[in-house]
C-alpha cells in the first residue's frame, strides 16, 4: 500500500510542480465558487473553505492563497480583483479596471495564520527540500485542523529528506498529543521533548492544564519533558540576558567615551556632552535625508556617510566651544559646569528652531532590522549587534589615537603636567582644542548609534548625560579602561535588575548602588596612580 503511494507521489511531484508553474502565470485551478468562499463571508466559513483546499492538496491554489495573504485581493459582489502592478480579474485572469467601491478582503490574525498554515502545508509538495523544510518549520505551532492534518500525514509518509521528516514528526506529535490512544500520546511526548523550543513547551504545558491529560503515567512523562526543555531553554535565556546587558553596556560606553576625554582627561564638567550626541543623531538624520533625496538606490548605506559626517560636525562644534568659552575657564571646574550647561541649552534651542521640536524620523537600513536566530527562544537583533561592533571599533580607534599617535602623546602629556609639557614646546592651547574636539566627535559617533535604537529629538542628550557621568565617575576619572569596565558592569547590572524588579525600580537601584559605591571608593574603580594627583 505504502509502496504504491510512494510511486504515486513520485509521479505526482513533477505533475504538481508543473501545475504550479502553469497556474502561477495563467488561470487558476480553484473554481470561482471556491475562490469566492475563500475571500468573502465570515471567518468560520472561510476557514472551512480553506480546510477543503488543504484536504484536496490542490497545489495550484498556492498562488491565489498567497495573494489573499498579501492583501492583494479585493471584491465587489461576486467579482474578485487581483491588485498588483495592474488590476486583473482574479477569476478569469483578464485585465480590468478596479471599481471605486471594491472592498478589501480583511484577514485578521486568525485568518492569516490559517492562510499561512495552508500555504505551508501545500508547499510540502514542493520539489525543493529547502522549501519543504521551511514549510514544515512554518507548520510548527499552528492550530491543527482536520484538512491540514490529513495532508501532513500523507506527506509525512513519503518524505525522503531527513530534516524535513524530523520537523514533520514534531508537527504531527503536537497533534497526536491529544490522541485518545495512550501509547501514541507517550510517543508524541517523547518526540516533543527533543525540540527545546517555547512552542513545544507551550503544547506540553497546556496538556497538563485543567482536564487535559488524565493518565498519571503520561502526566509524569510530560512533566519530565517539560523540565528537560526548560533547563535547555534557561541556558539561552541567560545568554539573552547577558546579551541585553552587553548591548546596554556598549551604548553606555559609546556615550561615556567622549566624556572620558573631556571630563576625565581635561577636567571640564561638560554638561553639553549630551547635546553633542544629539547633534550627532541629527547629523545622521541629515545624511539619511541626503541619501533619500539624491541617492535613493544606495539608501541602505547612508550610515557610511553619517559616521564621518557626524564626527566632523560635532568635533568642529566642540572646537568652536573650546575656543570661545572653555579656554578661559581651565582649572575652574564649577565654572565650566555652568558655562557648558548654558551651551547645552543654546544648542538644544538651536536644534529646536532649525528642525522643529518634534522628533525626526531616522530609518534603520534594512541590514539593521531583524535579527539572528541562535535558538528557538534566542534572537539577537541586528541593530544591537551592529552597535556592539561599532562601540568596539570606536574604542580601538580611540585607544590607538591616545597611545600610538603624536596627538595622543600630547594629550596625555598636557593632562599629566601642563607646565612641563608647555616647557618642552607642546602648544598646550592647541592640544586642548584638539582634545575637546576629539571628545565631542566621539559623542557625535555615539549619537549615530543612538539614532538607530531610539528617538531623535532635541532632548535626546538629556536622557544620556546622567548615565555618561555615572560611567565616568564610577570607572575612575582620567581612566579609559575604567570607563569600559564601568559601562559593561552598569549595563549588565541594570539589565539583570530590570529582569527582576522592572524598569522603574531598576533605575533607582542602580543609582543607589552607585551612591554607596562612590562613598566607599570615591576614586572610582581604577585610581589614577601618578604624582600629579592633587
Amino acid at each position, binding site marked *: 500500500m505504502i509502496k504504491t503511494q510512494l510511486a504515486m507521489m513520485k509521479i505526482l511531484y513533477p505533475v504538481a510542480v508543473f501545475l504550479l508553474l502553469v497556474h502561477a502565470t495563467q488561470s487558476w485551478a480553484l473554481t470561482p465558487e471556491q475562490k469566492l468562499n475563500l475571500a468573502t463571508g465570515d*471567518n468560520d466559513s472561510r476557514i472551512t473553505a480553506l480546510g477543503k483546499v488543504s484536504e484536496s492538496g490542490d497545489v495550484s491554489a498556492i498562488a491565489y492563497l498567497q495573494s489573499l495573504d498579501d*492583501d492583494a485581493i479585493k471584491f465587489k459582489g461576486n467579482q474578485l480583483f487581483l491588485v498588483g502592478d495592474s488590476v486583473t480579474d482574479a477569476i478569469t485572469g483578464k485585465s480590468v479596471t478596479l471599481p471605486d467601491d471594491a472592498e*478589501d478582503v*480583511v*484577514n*485578521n*490574525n*486568525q485568518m*492569516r*495564520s490559517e492562510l*499561512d498554515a495552508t500555504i505551508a502545508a501545500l508547499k510540502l509538495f514542493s520539489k525543493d527540500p529547502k522549501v519543504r523544510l521551511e514549510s514544515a518549520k512554518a507548520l510548527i*505551532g499552528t492550530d491543527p485542523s482536520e484538512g491540514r492534518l490529513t495532508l501532513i500525514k500523507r506527506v509525512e509518509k513519503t518524505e525522503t529528506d531527513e530534516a524535513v521528516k524530523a520537523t514533520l514528526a514534531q508537527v504531527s506529535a503536537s497533534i497526536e498529543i491529544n490522541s485518545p490512544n495512550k501509547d501514541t500520546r507517550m510517543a508524541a511526548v517523547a518526540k516533543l521533548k527533543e525540540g527545546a523550543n*517555547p*512552542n513545544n*513547551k*507551550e503544547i*506540553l*504545558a*497546556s496538556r*497538563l*492544564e485543567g482536564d487535559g491529560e488524565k493518565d498519571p503515567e503520561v502526566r509524569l512523562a510530560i512533566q519530565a519533558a517539560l523540565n528537560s526543555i526548560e533547563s535547555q*531553554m534557561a541556558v539561552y*535565556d541567560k545568554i*539573552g*540576558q547577558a546579551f*541585553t546587558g552587553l*548591548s*546596554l553596556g556598549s551604548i553606555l560606553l559609546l556615550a561615556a567615551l567622549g566624556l572620558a576625554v573631556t571630563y576625565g582627561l581635561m577636567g571640564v564638567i561638560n554638561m553639553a556632552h549630551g547635546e553633542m550626541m544629539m547633534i550627532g543623531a541629527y547629523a545622521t538624520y541629515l545624511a539619511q535625508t541626503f541619501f533619500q533625496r539624491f541617492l535613493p538606490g544606495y539608501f541602505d548605506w547612508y550610515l557610511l556617510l553619517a559616521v564621518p559626517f557626524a564626527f566632523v560636525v560635532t568635533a568642529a562644534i566642540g572646537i568652536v566651544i573650546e575656543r570661545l568659552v572653555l579656554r578661559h575657564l581651565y582649572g575652574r571646574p564649577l565654572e565650566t559646569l555652568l558655562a557648558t550647561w548654558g551651551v547645552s541649552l543654546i544648542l538644544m534651542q538651536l536644534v*529646536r528652531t532649525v528642525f*522643529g*521640536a*518634534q*522628533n525626526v*524620523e531616522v*530609518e*534603520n537600513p534594512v541590514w539593521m*532590522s*531583524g*535579527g539572528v*536566530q541562535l535558538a528557538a*527562544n534566542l*534572537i539577537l*537583533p*541586528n*541593530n*544591537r549587534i551592529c552597535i556592539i561592533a561599532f562601540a568596539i571599533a570606536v574604542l580601538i580607534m580611540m585607544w590607538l589615537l591616545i597611545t600610538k599617535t603624536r596627538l595622543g602623546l600630547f594629550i596625555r602629556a598636557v593632562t599629566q603636567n601642563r607646565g612641563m609639557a608647555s616647557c618642552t614646546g607642546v602648544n598646550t592651547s592647541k592640544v586642548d582644542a584638539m582634545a575637546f574636539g576629539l571628545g565631542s566627535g566621539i559623542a557625535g559617533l555615539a549619537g549615530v548609534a543612538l539614532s538607530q*535604537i*531610539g*528617538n531623535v*529629538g*532635541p*532632548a535626546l542628550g538629556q*536622557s544620556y548625560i546622567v548615565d555618561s557621568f555615572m560611567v565616568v565617575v564610577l570607572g575612575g576619572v582620567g581612566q579609559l579602561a575604567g570607563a569600559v569596565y564601568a559601562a559593561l558592569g552598569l549595563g549588565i547590572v541594570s*539589565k539583570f535588575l*530590570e*529582569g527582576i524588579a*522592572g*524598569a*522603574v525600580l531598576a*533605575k533607582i537601584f542602580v543609582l543607589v548602588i552607585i551612591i554607596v559605591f562612590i562613598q566607599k571608593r570615591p576614586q572610582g574603580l581604577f585610581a589614577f596612580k601618578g604624582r600629579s594627583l592633587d
Partner: protein
Amino acid sequence: MQNRRNFIKTLTAIAAGIALMTGSLTSSAADDTIKVGVLHSLSGTMAISETALKDMALMTIDEINKKGGVLGKKLEPVVVDPASDWPLFATKARQLLTQDKVAVTFGCWTSVSRKSVLPVYKELNGLLFYPVQYEGEELEKNVFYTGAAPNQQAIPAVEYLMSKQGGSAKRFVLLGTDYVYPRTTNKILRAFLHSKGVDDADIMEEYTPFGHSDYQTIVANIKKFASEGKKTAVVSTINGDSNVPFYKELGNAGLKAKDVPVVAFSVGEEELRGVDTKPLVGHLAAWNYFMSIKNPTNAAWIKEWSAYAKEKNLPSASKPLTNDPMEATYIGIHMWAQAVEKAKSTDTDKVIAAMAGQTYKAPSGFVAEMDPKNHHLHKPVFIGEVKADGQFNVVWKTPGPIKAQPWSPYIEGDDKKPDEPVTN
C-alpha cells in the same frame, strides 16, 4: 523750567493716549473675536502625539471661521506649548484663562496633564475639552471628555482578545508607561479579567518611565511569559515616543502577532509613522475611529486635512494621517461651537447646559452624541489590525455607538457614584 513741565505734560498725554488706544484695541478685539485656547505639548516626549492635535484644532477653527465663525464672531486660537511638563500645563492653563481670557480650551493628552490642569479649570470656572481616551474615574463639571472611557476601548479590546476570533487569549501582559492612566486602566482590566476567571498568575504587569527607549528586557520577558502554556496577549498602554523603540524591538525580536498579539490603546496612525510596520502586521489597536474607515464623511475630512496640511506646509504634509484623538478634537470643537450658538453666549455655565445632547456627524461614520448628563460621548468601538502600510484593518466593531461609563463597574464602590458631575 517751563519747558520741562511742558515736556512732562506732553509725555503724560502721549502715555495716556497710548494707554487709551491699546485699551480700545484690546476691547475691540475682544468684541469681534472669541478666543479659544489650544493646550498641547509641542515638544518633549508627548509631542509625537499632541502636535497633530494642535494642527487639527487650528484646522477646525479655520473651517468654522470660513463659515462665518460662532455667534457672528471669528474664533481666535491661542496656542501655548506646555512641553510635556505636567506642572507647566497648569501654569499655561492659568495663563490662558486669566491673561488671554479664552472662552474654552481644547487640550491635554496624558491623564497626568489633565489632572494637573483640573484644579485651575475648577477654580476659575473654565471649560476644557479633553480629546483622548482615558481611564475614567473622573467626572468634572468643567470638562467634556470626547475620547473613550474604558468601556468604550479597553474592555471591548480585551473581550475581543479573549474571543475565538481574537485568538482566545488566556494570559495577559499589561504593559504601560508609569503614570495614572496605565495604572488605573490596568487596575480596571485586572478586575475585569478576574471576573472572567483569569488568575493573578496569568497576568503580568510591567511599567516603564516616560521616554523609556530600551525594551529588550521587557520583550524578552514577554516571550518567556508567553511560552508557559496558554495563549498570551499583550495590552499596551505605553504613551508617547517610547512606542517607536517598543515596536522596533517587537519587530526585531520576531514577536509575531500570530503568536502574541499586542493591542495598544495609545497607538494610532500617527505614532506608527516612521516605524517599519511590515514585521508588525496583525498587532492591534482599539479606538473609536480609524483613518481606513470608508464613508463619505471620513473621505471628506481626510481630504480637508490633507489640503490644510499642504497649505500650511506642515511637516506631515507629505503623508497626511488622521487618527482617533484628532477626530475627537474635531468633534469637540464643532460641538462646542454648536452649543455656543444654542446658548447664544460663551459663558461657561450656559455652554455646559447647552452641550447636553449635542450631536455631530463624525468621520467614524456614526453620529456622535454628547450624553445629556455625563459629559462623555456615545461612540462606536473599532478594533483594527496593523497593515503593512501603517494603516489599520478594522476586524471588529460594535453595531453602533455605546454610552460611556466613566465610573467603571469593575472598581469597587463606583456603582454608587452618580452618572453626572456633582456640584457642591
